[in-house]
């Protein structure tokens, strides 16, 4: 029964975004974060230490048993831009992981499927065209579904206070774009045009976690994704450089009941700038993500029994919608969770409130993340 449930979880389609955004309409889309619900509860501050996230391969070394995790996110978003406002909602399944230690070896292996960049959006606009000498109101919808997914195979090796890890990433996915136009004058036929982009790339990353004494740990990652090849309707059209990623995290176990963590991640998205500009895109900028969070456990002997997680995060986004204005986002989050069935099953919840802005383009979003984990 448990195995059936576990397989069912893995069968669900995870290849969508953690969240959609109007800031994902340009470039490669809205970047994924690869954090589990547990980590999202503290704004991702524990992400580099979290085995159920897909940021740091070295974090797999902390697993005591085989663990499968699945994350779903329900987003409620308010969008403001010079054209108007809208309230949106979306459901996404951004992360699925399965990992576990190898018996009698200080080694852990894991596979994860997560979001790399999300291009889920629908943009509606209206205009008036001068056709046949008369003004004709038109209504346009440009929609996109899909994005780039990140299939990761990772291993961690731990010895003493240090765990190192490495991972291999396959970047894949597709992006179905559709442009629809309808005319107020129904003697003009509606038009729908579509295209499908497919992505392919590979990358690699290394990570390390080192314990400094009994209360401090430090984590670091470095990742290179090379480039992504893009085909449009099965015809190669472009190749875009992907960023290097560097991350550093610090965890302080302030007391048996309370831990604090912070991390910073820097991505060299400006490497894709020239490729995107050459394709008529908006270019891209380097990004930085800073997160700080804490976790309070009521009973240190049972740390998974309804802990309280809290955190805040600031990040810049790579793809501008207005020239010279880099989008930014700020988020605060709250989370908790529980384990049951002799710690074999677990549910984590996280609530995140995100503000994004770039000039006149603004967005507020409530994200409810639910993570289910199974340890068969």
């Amino acid at each position: 029964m448990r195995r059936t449930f576990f397989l069912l979880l893995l069968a669900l389609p995870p290849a969508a975004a953690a969240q959609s955004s109007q800031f994902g309409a340009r470039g490669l889309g809205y970047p994924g974060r690869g954090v589990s619900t547990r980590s999202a509860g503290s704004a991702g501050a524990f992400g580099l230490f979290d085995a159920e996230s897909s940021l740091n391969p070295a974090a797999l070394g902390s697993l005591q048993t085989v663990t499968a995790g699945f994350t779903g996110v329900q987003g409620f978003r308010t969008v403001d831009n010079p054209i108007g406002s809208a309230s949106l909602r979306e459901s996404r399944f951004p992360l699925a992981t399965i990992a576990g230690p190898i018996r009698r070896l200080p080694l852990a292996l894991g596979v994860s499927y997560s979001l790399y960049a999300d291009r889920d959006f629908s943009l509606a606009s209206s205009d008036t065209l001068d056709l046949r000498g008369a003004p004709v109101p038109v209504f346009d919808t440009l929609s996109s579904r899909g994005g780039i997914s990140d299939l990761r195979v990772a291993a961690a090796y731990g010895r003493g206070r240090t765990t190192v890890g490495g991972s291999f990433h396959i970047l894949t996915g597709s992006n179905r774009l559709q442009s629809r136009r309808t005319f107020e004058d129904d003697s003009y036929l509606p038009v729908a045009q579509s295209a499908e982009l497919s992505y392919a790339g590979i990358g690699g990353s290394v990570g390390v976690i080192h314990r400094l004494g009994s209360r401090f740990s430090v984590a670091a990652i470095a990742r290179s994704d090379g480039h992504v090849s893009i085909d449009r309707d099965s015809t190669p059209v472009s190749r875009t450089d992907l960023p290097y990623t560097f991350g550093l995290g610090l965890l302080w176990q302030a007391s048996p009941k309370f831990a604090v963590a912070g991390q910073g991640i820097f991505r060299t998205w400006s490497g894709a700038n020239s490729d995107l500009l050459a394709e008529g895109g908006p270019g891209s900028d380097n990004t930085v993500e800073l997160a700080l969070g804490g976790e309070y456990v009521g009973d240190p002997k049972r740390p998974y029994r309804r802990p309280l997680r809290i955190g805040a995060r600031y990040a810049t986004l790579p793809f501008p919608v207005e020239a010279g204005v880099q989008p930014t986002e700020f988020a605060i989050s709250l989370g908790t969770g529980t384990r049951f069935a002799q710690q074999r099953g677990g549910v984590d919840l996280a609530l995140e409130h995100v503000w994004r802005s770039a000039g006149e383009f603004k967005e507020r979003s409530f994200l409810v993340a639910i993570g289910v984990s199974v340890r068969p």
Partner: protein
Amino acid sequence: MRAVGWRGRGAVCSTAWLLLAVAAIAGCQEKLTSPGECPALCPGGEVQALDIVLRPIAGRDSTFSGYVNRGSGVALLVSNGLAVSDNRAAYRFASRPDSIVVGNDTVPYTIDSVAIALDLVARDTLVDGLKVYLYRVSEGITDTLTFAGLEAQLTPAGIIDSIEVPDTLNSGAIRTVLTGVDLAKVDLPLGGSGVLAIGVAMAADQPSGIRIGSAQAGNGATFITYVNVDVADTTTSVRKQVLSRTATFNTYLTRAALIPDPAFLTLGGDSASRVLLRFALPPEVAESASIVRATLELIPRGPIPGLPTDPAVLVGRAVLADLGAKSPVTIDPRFIVDDTLSANRADTVRMDVTRIVQLWQAASERPSAIFLTLLPEAATFMRAEFGSTRTDPTITPSAPEPVGAPRLRITYQRPFPFENP
């Protein structure tokens, strides 16, 4: 006991958490459409919509005639000095026998009365005082009959009867019944062919016309004879019988049949003319555009002559292969368009031919051509003449009577410039 209770509560809580998780994810419907600020949020740019106007390939817009013979259409034309054409009609009925078979015997009959019925298909409803005249004409009328030949037989001596049509009757059956001495007007001598032929003319308060039923449409004239059979049988249905004869031949004739002017594009008339228009789509439109609207515009030479209040139907069909006059046309209703054409209309005639032009794009083996027909063929007074490339002063500056050529006005969109990230 207490421990078991706690475990049970834990299980309930765990299940509640799980259900809450599943419900929260699965229970919300997506709504992803947000206001789009272009060009900032529009990857690739905006859709470009453009208009172009095409004219037929010079000299490749043609009139072809003679597809339907007079009398082979769904109606016959009769008129009294109508400007568009002056017409008379004629019917020849099937042979009526001299005797009737009753049981095993062939017995003669005596005629009680005769009725001749016509089906009035259409009239000018604004003209009163319609009277239809029936004449007896030679039973030997054939396709070779001429207007003058028929008119010569429509004399007072040959008149059978006239039918006054109520002004309130716009269409339907009209008939006359002959009895007594009037039966001599339709007398068919014993031992003869038994064939009756009639000519039809009309009068009204002013020059007008009517369309009457034809054998082709199944509503042609009927010649009905009510007879008494002299037999001992007392059954009414045996002693009183009806001999009904339908028309085996019918036609109508025009006083001065017009031959289509080759400089113009002619549709309809008693010549049953059709028009073939050929266009050349520009490569940008043919290969990659999304056609959102295509309108064929025809410029009349003048007010379109016809019978007022009796419109015709202009039909455009996609052509399957360009074989000139014998080009096969589609029967797929998606690629057949029609529009009503009223008499005396002088403004530009417009037809939406979007689906047909889209077909040219989708199936390159289909010629970029439209075949136009005016229905009912050879059964309408309307004869529409439109300008051609031979009369368009921009194409043929020396045209003696300048009238613009047909125009194909296409509104299309260029392919959306989807951005390659």
